[in-house]
């Protein structure tokens, strides 16, 4: 019986896997960069790939686990969700102002933690995606710093 069944199982498994191989890893689907505008403001930017979307209310920035930062999240596209009510999503590029609690001394990069969560139109969602950026802070009166990309992701979101 298994001789007949095994190839059928193999193709069924392959069907599941091929759907997956087309998926971008989250750090490519939701490319994150940031720059310091001044000593108290960070401008973060998600470039959401075509066919993917981020949930507005699942984006958080912090300095380490203890210090959650306030953000100016632009309005997203409103979508009705049966369980959560109205939710807003972002597609394409989205720019977010992140406020630092106090002036950051220039010279040392600021370690910014970002958490985000999104889905693919293909019908799957990614687990929450923690990312870290080292953002250089300009000295007072200087021009905004350059955009930096998020560092390579941690191996697992549980670690």
């Amino acid at each position: 019986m298994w001789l007949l069944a095994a190839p059928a199982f193999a193709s069924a498994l392959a069907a599941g896997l091929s759907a997956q191989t087309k998926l971008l890893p989250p750090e490519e689907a939701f490319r994150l960069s940031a720059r310091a505008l001044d000593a108290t403001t960070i401008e973060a930017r998600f470039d959401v790939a075509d066919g993917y979307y981020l949930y507005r209310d699942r984006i958080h920035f912090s300095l380490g686990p203890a210090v959650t930062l306030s953000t100016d999240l632009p309005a997203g596209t409103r979508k009705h969700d049966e369980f959560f009510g109205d939710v807003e999503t972002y597609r394409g590029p989205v720019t977010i102002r992140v406020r630092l609690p106090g002036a950051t001394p220039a010279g040392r990069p600021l370690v910014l933690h970002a958490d985000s969560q999104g889905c693919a139109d293909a019908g799957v969602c990614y687990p929450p995606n923690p990312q870290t950026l080292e953002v250089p802070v300009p000295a007072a009166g200087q021009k905004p710093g350059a955009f930096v990309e998020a560092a390579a992701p941690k191996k697992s979101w549980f670690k």
Partner: protein
Amino acid sequence: MSSGPDETPRASFPSGLSHRRLSRRSLLVGGVAVAAAALAAGAALFRQRDARAREGAAVLAMVLPDVDGRDTALAQWRGKVLVVNFWATWCAPCREEMPQFVAVQTRDGAKGVQFVGIAVDQVDKVKDFVKEIRLNYPVLIGGFGAIELSKALGNDLAALPFTIVLGRTGEVAHTQLGQLKAAQLDSLLKTLLA
């Protein structure tokens, strides 16, 4: 093709061996090769079957807390056609397919189908949703180990929904990233319950 099967041996055995003998020898070699290929194919099938059994055993070895914190062993459903669905409330495609699982659990439960949800989520949110859709099968809370297992079964990105279907003998019969369509689930269960 200058060094065909007849020429190479002739060069190696310039005297004594007849052409016919050489042909027979090459036939023999060919026969051995075919048999070896058949064995290798058989071995590959065995290995594949082994892998499915090992993966299934890893699924059945999981012990996870339910929404009230009680440890629950998946091994208790050994012998059932077990549908293990990884989901979360923050995953809309997951929530969309679950009412269908509730219906199939009602329809096929007595025939030996058992659904189990593994929620990659916060317990309070899970409890709310379970109540809302009147879930009629157990939901367990999946932590790091459950996610790693789903990755080992081909879901590298730990994306959701992800569903593993085990046959009655505990082998992995199907894994699905993304929603399991009703027709697909039905034909899978029909085969596995037969």
